């Protein structure tokens, strides 16, 4: 049965338990075997919630060590969680979570992980999914994903009985961007791209092509819904990777998409003139204008009309670069430049 989302969904239960536990009076049950009291239930729930920290540390240790970024992610997640449970319950849960972190830092055995997950299984799937989200977050914190970490995640998902769709959603959110960045930062590596797109290298060509078409539909749809430029650029890159893989599969030829060469810096080059004449402060909102002008290399001795012309060329140049297979850092640089060009254009048009 599906439910329309209420105003308070996830944390209402926790608040109820931890906020009013002293009022509990026990429940009616079998007289020979008393039902657990409200306090016992609250204690069990507290342990179950705190066990999320053990799971988080276990996954962070998946690559063999726990670095600062992983620890920071764990604590940030804990703080955000506590904010949601409300002032009354937060100190108690926070204390239990911190104790769990301290115990886990000495190492999490397989047995402890199993116990932690068993405790968590008494929680609703929504809270277990949050723990799974924490596991993904800590694994992604160092911007690297190793096979051993993926194995840890899969094990945790199995133990927590996380629905496959939830696992895929979290994988998409936390791991895919890292895998995409890794796959596109170096020279094109078809087998890495295939793995990223869920293709088994042993599959026959037709099956690979079918999968590519499905992945194309997915990223094409996501490009339409992506709200920010970075996500759109990422989807656009995926479409290009998919198109290139398909071409390679069909023709047997590797498409030549070498990144656009950078402006030369060797002898004989003519560097753009450095900004020399500052524009009236009132006409350019400082400091954005000047910073953007330096980034784009605008000649400030030129009139606003001339600068607009220059911006158009620069825009075509940066957009042209974006059409190449660029590493994420270079792609981000292109995005930054294009945003700066848009801001400057607004400024110059207002000046004319």
């Amino acid at each position: 049965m599906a439910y329309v989302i209420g105003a308070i969904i996830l944390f209402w239960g926790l608040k109820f338990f931890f906020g009013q536990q002293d009022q509990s009076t026990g429940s009616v049950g079998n007289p020979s075997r008393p039902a657990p009291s409200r306090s016992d239930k609250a204690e069990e729930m507290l342990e179950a919630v705190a066990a999320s920290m053990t799971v988080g540390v276990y996954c962070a240790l998946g690559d063999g060590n726990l670095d600062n970024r992983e620890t920071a992610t764990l604590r940030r997640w804990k703080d955000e969680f506590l904010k949601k449970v409300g002032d009354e319950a937060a100190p108690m849960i926070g204390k239990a979570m911190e104790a769990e972190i301290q115990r886990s830092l000495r190492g999490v055995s397989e047995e402890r992980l199993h116990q932690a997950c068993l405790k968590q299984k008494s929680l609703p799937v929504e809270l277990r999914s949050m723990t799974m989200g924490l596991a993904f977050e800590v694994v992604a914190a160092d911007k690297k994903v190793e096979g051993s970490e993926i194995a840890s995640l899969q094990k945790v998902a199995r133990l927590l009985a996380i629905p496959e769709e939830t696992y895929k959603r979290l994988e998409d959110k936390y791991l895919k961007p890292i895998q995409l960045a890794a796959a596109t930062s170096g020279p094109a590596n078809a087998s890495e791209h295939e793995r990223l797109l869920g293709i088994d290298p042993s599959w026959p060509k037709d099956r690979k092509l079918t999968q590519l078409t499905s992945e194309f539909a997915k990223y094409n749809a996501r490009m339409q819904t992506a709200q920010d430029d970075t996500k759109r650029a990422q989807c656009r890159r995926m479409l290009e990777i998919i198109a290139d893989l398909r071409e390679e599969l069909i023709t047997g030829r590797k498409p030549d998409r070498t990144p656009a060469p950078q402006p030369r810096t060797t002898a004989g080059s003519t560097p753009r003139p450095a900004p020399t004449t500052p524009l009236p402060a009132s006409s350019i909102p400082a400091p954005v204008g000047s910073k953007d002008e330096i980034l784009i290399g605008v000649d400030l001795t030129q009139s606003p009309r001339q600068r607009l012309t220059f911006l158009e060329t620069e825009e075509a140049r940066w957009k042209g670069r974006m059409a190449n297979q660029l590493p994420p850092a270079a792609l981000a640089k292109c995005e930054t430049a294009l945003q700066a060009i848009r801001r400057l254009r607004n400024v110059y048009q207002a000046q004319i």
Partner: protein
Amino acid sequence: MTDKAANIIGIDLGTTTTLVARFNEAGKPEMTNNAEGATITPSVIQIDDSGSVIVGTEAKKFLGTGQPNIYAEFKREMGSDKSWPIGGKTVTPVELSALLLKKVVADYAEQFGQPQSVVITWPANYRNEQREATKEAAARAGLKVEYYIEEPTAAALYYATDTALDGKYLVYDFGGGTFDVTLIEAHGNKIDVLYQDGVQELGGKDLDNALLKIIGEKFRAKTNDEFDAVDCNFDKLAVEGSKHTLSTKDKTSIRLVSAKHGPIVIDLSRDEFEAGISHLVSQAEMACENVLRCGKDPADTAQHVKKSDIKDIFMAGGTSRVPAMQASVERLFGKKPKVKNPAEAIAMGAAIYAAHKASGGTLNALQGQAVANIDVSLIAPHFFGTSVYDNDSGLYNDTVISKGNKLPCREERTYYTMRDNQTKVDCDVTQSAIEEKNCEYVTKIWQGSLELPSGRPAGQPIKVIYSYDINGTMHCSFKDGENGRSTEVNLKPGN
């Protein structure tokens, strides 16, 4: 029927060009000329400092010359919050589209009088907010547009009335800024749209950019310097010109005069151009393959339309003239595509649709006969859903109207409140191009809430009712199943 012919037009409001066709006295669609005597009006606008507006060919001449306040390709920004500053004010894509519509309709009215009925086209993969923005542009242009039609469907209608059709066909519409592909089943003048797909950021302008990249690489190889279009006085029109030449010839040469490096000749071959655009062609091919799946499970091939079931492929849109596009379609389907009036087919189809919709007393006898047997069945262009929660899946997007549902359609779902004494339900309307459970990958086109009376136990039914009419207008309501109170959704821009 009347003795006097109805004055009816269809407008193909394109990313790079806009065309107007009329449904003439003899009941045939025909292209009309603008004030400059051309059938094609470039979708380019210049607004000068005094606020005077130049639309079309004259404005396009200034593209890439450094003239300020030249606006092109604003169709891609429709539905966004983008605006451009101009003389202390701003101008939006909707306002620019309105200026363009005003100009082409005024030019038409000069020759044929004010049209009684107007149909405007939009891309098949246009999102809801883009469709609403187009309606707003038409209203701002002072046009009373009762009907809109998707570009490939309009082209299909033109081909259906021009050629005897009987079976399944594909309309491949590669325009200046968008690519759409639509699967139809047509028997005579009865057309059923079966499914549609497209790539929103794929059009002739992307081919131009790919060509510009090749030119830049060759320039660098010759000069060891970055290509600077301004330095070489090489503008967008020149890129388009080279593209057109390579569509008819195997090679061409571009003579650049660089202020820094002097005269430079760049030789370009069609092979180089085709290699440079192969990833774009491949994207169009995958969209074609996806449309044949009709939104069904990729593994369930029995539910897909087979390539061999497609009787013909009609190519519309100016970019369809590029030989690589035609070769790609032939390679994919194993048959030569039909390329007939690719640039005009959409406007002419829109004029036919306008006549079809206007029938009932306003048409003359010949016009009436021409559209008497037309029957067009449209589909929902996207998946529309709402975010819900259940214990097994957590929060997910649940589809209410599926892409491909025949229009008009109405769907109702019942969900339930989650807890006792719940006094509010958060509601949203989502949109996506594929069936998507993950709430992160859908667009929320509306968000609001429904107030509920207090004191009721969990499990109260909440009815979610969506309907979508043939004109791309969606109506939604979230209704308390117990007391009938509802929240009606207004999906107009800004709401």
